């Protein structure tokens, strides 16, 4: 073995192995003590040595000839930044026709009049959306229940289409709906403009209905999914679930429900501590149970894949994409620099622009920390204003205490909004952060699967990421 210099890397220990992670998030699973041997120049395994050089952990030259390539790969990892804000969420109204126990949106009664966006706000918001330089834009309609404002949706899409004649961006539309109100007219609109439907399906009826506060919710959701699929095609309909306390006991049943209903993806999401959901007191207990639920559900999903059913877990896929591929990811909650503003902006029914989905939920509780400006303000004042600049100082986990020397930093992200809302401090205090605990537990679990069951799970994971 030749003389070598170190390149930046970190390490952790799991299941009797030492996991080395370099600056890109490339990972090597090695025997315990390898990090120390590298530093002491006492590596005695030639194949391990070659892998360390090939994977940018050590360099045989003082200034690596391939540093430009390393830099190019680093740029690719962060290339989600190049596009600037691609996801634009339009919260049309707080009105809703359901009463979900964990509503993050603090929804109001269906009949109330004062909680919707005006046409003027929609017009200004669409213009703001196009001020982002991103070559691809996603216009996502949320609420309350956005399908209660079909004319506003129509107006918004048609205005965007008109402006896009000149702008020529790659624009896509998403309607987040509970499917109770998918009228023929609305679906016709969706068909014309290739609007994707994103709905909530929490699991089998006994879970879904309990969560949604109405007895026919499951029925209506399934009927809506089928109707939407028939008119728009299977690929146009996707579903998310939120793991309520009841759901925690039924990982297998929830996955089975999704498979039965013809879905090929599931996103196992934990509860957010916002809106009505924050009445749940014991977050520590919930968090522990959620991690156990997640592992059980993921194990079952892997089992299904082995039996020949292609079925992907979305959250794992995002982390695995960071771990196993050279590519960037665009999921707002797991990014550094943070997804707020960089990847997403919210145009709210109250006439204001917010830094993220969770930012506007804080506002419903009287906390306007992440309200960036009025929809009628100038783009530059909103996006380069003081609030964003302050966030900019603390939104990269490479520069946060607890994160900067965390071995799995590359697979995680910064979440100033969540830390502000749960700890009262955007910067965040990692030791007691539930976001940190949850993310770390899931990331380490995925790494353990690679260590213990690598041959079994790698082909499955690859099929999820192609």
């Amino acid at each position: 073995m030749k003389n070598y210099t170190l390149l930046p890397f970190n390490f952790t220990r799991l299941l009797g192995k030492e996991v080395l992670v370099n600056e890109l998030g490339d990972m090597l699973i090695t025997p315990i003590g390898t990090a120390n041997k590298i530093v002491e120049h006492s590596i005695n395994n030639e194949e391990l040595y070659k892998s360390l050089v090939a994977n940018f952990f050590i360099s045989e030259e003082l200034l690596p000839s391939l540093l430009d390539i390393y830099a190019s790969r680093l740029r690719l990892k962060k290339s989600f930044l190049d596009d600037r804000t691609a996801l634009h969420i339009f919260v049309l109204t707080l009105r809703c026709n359901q009463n979900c126990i964990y509503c993050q949106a603090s929804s109001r009664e269906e009949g109330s009049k004062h909680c919707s966006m005006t046409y003027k706000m929609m017009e200004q918001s669409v213009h703001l959306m196009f001020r982002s330089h991103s070559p691809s834009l996603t216009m996502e309609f949320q609420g309350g229940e956005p399908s209660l404002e079909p004319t506003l949706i129509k107006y918004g899409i048609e205005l965007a289409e008109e402006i896009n004649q000149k702008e020529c961006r790659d624009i896509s539309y998403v309607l987040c709906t509970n499917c109770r109100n998918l009228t023929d007219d609305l679906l016709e609109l969706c068909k014309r403009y290739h609007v994707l439907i994103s709905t909530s399906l929490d699991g089998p009826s006994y879970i879904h209905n309990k969560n949604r506060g109405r007895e026919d919710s499951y029925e209506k959701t399934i009927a809506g999914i089928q109707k939407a699929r028939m008119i728009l095609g299977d690929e146009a309909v996707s579903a998310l679930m939120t793991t309520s306390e009841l759901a925690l006991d039924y990982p297998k049943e929830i996955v089975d429900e999704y498979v039965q209903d013809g879905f090929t993806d599931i996103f196992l999401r934990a509860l957010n501590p916002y809106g009505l959901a924050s009445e749940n007191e014991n977050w520590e207990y919930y968090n522990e149970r959620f991690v156990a639920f997640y592992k059980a559900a993921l194990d079952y999903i892997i089992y299904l894949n082995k039996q020949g059913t292609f079925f992907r877990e979305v959250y794992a896929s995002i982390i695995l994409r960071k771990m196993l591929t050279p590519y960037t990811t665009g999921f707002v909650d797991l990014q550094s620099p943070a997804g707020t503003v960089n990847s997403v902006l919210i145009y709210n029914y109250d006439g204001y622009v917010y830094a993220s989905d969770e930012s506007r939920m804080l506002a419903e509780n009287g906390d306007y920390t992440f309200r960036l400006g009025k929809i009628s303000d100038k783009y530059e004042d909103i996006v380069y204003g003081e609030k964003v600049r302050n966030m900019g100082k603390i939104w990269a986990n490479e520069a946060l205490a607890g994160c900067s020397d965390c071995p799995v930093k590359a697979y995680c992200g910064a979440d100033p909004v969540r830390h502000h809302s749960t700890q009262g401090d955007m910067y965040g205090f990692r030791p007691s952060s539930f976001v940190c605990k949850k993310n770390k537990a899931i990331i380490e679990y995925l790494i353990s699967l690679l260590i213990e069951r690598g041959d079994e799970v790698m082909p499955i994971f690859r099929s999820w990421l192609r």
Partner: protein
Amino acid sequence: MILQIDRNIYSDSCISKVVYWLSDQYTIERRMEGCNEILQIEGVADEHSFKNLFFEKLNDFKLRGIIENETKDIRTILYAKAFGDFDDITEEVITE
């Protein structure tokens, strides 16, 4: 519980990081005595396990510190190479 740590072996930064990670569960007071740092920790149930845990973390951070020290220059060059020309884009946007 009292822990004595030789500051010639473990730097302030190293010790601070371990203290950071334990500070949500324990109250820790630090003071210097000569070249040793003395930590007074409240609320420790099992002193033996705590000491093992503490030194395991301390050794890991020390090793990370060595790696960081040896690689900080190359890391700076790497980031400069990777993101150096981003400045052009920012300027162009702000002058609009």
